[in-house]
């Protein structure tokens, strides 16, 4: 069966599809969060060297992974929107940015809370911490640029260009920060390469999936709002049940 994928590149068609998909992702996210948090708090054993404080990793690691992943996805959508002039891709990029920024912030926050008992400091100028902070700044730049341009088409295209420039710059920033730090001193604490307990792996993986499904659900919700906002003067929006009632 051949599916016409391009059908859903029109906001009209995608609005309905996103509405159908949101409950699936939202519920699976809720269930996965419940399972993941249960494993991470009650099943996963206490760590030999880091005692109970290590459990914050089950939030910290998934959010950091996703904050970087979402930036790439966002830049990809933005680039597609810029090159092929598809409105929906730009809307997706806009919808993803706040979630990415939120995850980057949570990752920094939980990292600080983990760092205090482990390193004895809320903040260390470690390469990873610094690049995560810069990633947060890049998200802020994207959101601020998009918000300050009134014309949505220009906002989409300008923000898209910024996202592409940013994604080209991310590796340069990462390596320069890394070399900057190693020129001064080696990082003091590293995750030991020893094999993780199986329950820890399960918890981490479940939490990663939970965060992923959450970000899909919330971005789809957000993109629905953006579609409604941008197309508010059209006939099909006026005919929607939720708009009429």
């Amino acid at each position, binding site marked *: 069966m051949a599916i016409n994928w391009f059908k859903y590149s029109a906001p009209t068609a995608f609005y309905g599809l996103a509405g159908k998909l949101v409950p699936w992702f939202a519920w699976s996210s809720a269930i996965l969060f419940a399972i993941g948090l249960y494993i991470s708090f009650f099943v996963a054993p206490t760590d030999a060297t880091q005692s109970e404080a290590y459990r914050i990793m089950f939030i910290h690691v998934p959010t950091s992974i996703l904050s970087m992943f979402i930036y790439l996805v966002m830049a990809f959508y933005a680039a597609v929107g810029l090159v092929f002039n598809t409105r929906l891709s730009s809307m997706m990029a806009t919808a993803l940015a706040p979630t990415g920024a939120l995850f980057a912030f949570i990752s920094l926050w939980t990292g600080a809370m983990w760092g205090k008992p482990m390193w004895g400091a809320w903040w260390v100028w470690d390469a990873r911490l610094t690049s995560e902070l*810069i990633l947060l*700044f*890049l998200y*802020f*730049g994207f959101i*601020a*640029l998009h918000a*300050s*341009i009134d014309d949505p*088409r*220009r906002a989409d*295209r*300008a923000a898209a*260009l*910024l996202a592409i*420039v*940013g994604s*080209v*710059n991310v590796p*340069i*920033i990462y390596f*320069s*920060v890394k*070399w*900057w730090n190693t*020129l001064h001193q080696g990082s003091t604490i590293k995750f030991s390469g020893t094999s993780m307990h199986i329950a820890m792996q399960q918890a981490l993986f479940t939490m990663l999936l939970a965060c992923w499904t959450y970000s899909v659900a919330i971005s789809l919700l957000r993109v629905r709002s953006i579609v409604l906002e941008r197309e508010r003067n059209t006939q099909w929006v006026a005919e929607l049940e939720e708009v009429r009632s």
Partner: protein
Amino acid sequence: MSSMDKSLTAGTAKDKLSLFGLLGLVIRRDLILAMRRRADVLTTLVFFVMVVSLFPLGVGPELDMLRKMAPGVVWVAALLASMLSLGRLFSADYLDGTLEQLLLAPQPLSLLVLGKIIAHWMVSGLPLVLMAPVLGLQFDMSAQALWVLIATLLLGTPILSMIGAVGAALTLGLRGGGVLVSLLVLPLCIPVLIFGAGAVEAVTSGMSVVSHLSLLGAMMLLALVFTPWVTAQALRISME
């Protein structure tokens, strides 16, 4: 316009004006305009001098500490000063309609943009480079460190102008553009800051500066290839 059309029109225009001649014209025009309004040029320089001079007042006059801080302070101040002047890069041309004419010109827009960036650097970046050694003396930097500081600023400030041009083009004509452009551009400038200040620190601690300078040079070449084109695209988006 297809690329073929572009090369054709450039070919016919060649009889009158080579591309380098055009580049020279753009640079000359912007320099003349800048010289007519010298206050703007001086403002950036004075800001740079003031920010650097404020640091000893803030952290105390111990020479040992100042010597250690000097490269970072000078570099951060140069970064902030270059942000300050970015608003002027396209705004005057945007307001009086010159920018539209540049966009319509048969010659590649990237080249015209490159000319404007070079002129902007000569007006706002080069004075900082020349002023930096004097400020370095305030911080009791050694002669060797001063030479390295000049070298890194010479390599680094053009990169700041080039990356800044992208931000200036994206925020063209927006309200609050000045603050916004800093928000967009500063994170992208971090590598330049790291290697620029790092080179001076390396030479004072007796290490080789070659790797730092090579990386700065590589970044400059990379920026030289891509940023004029990206800026041209950004201008087209902003002028639609």
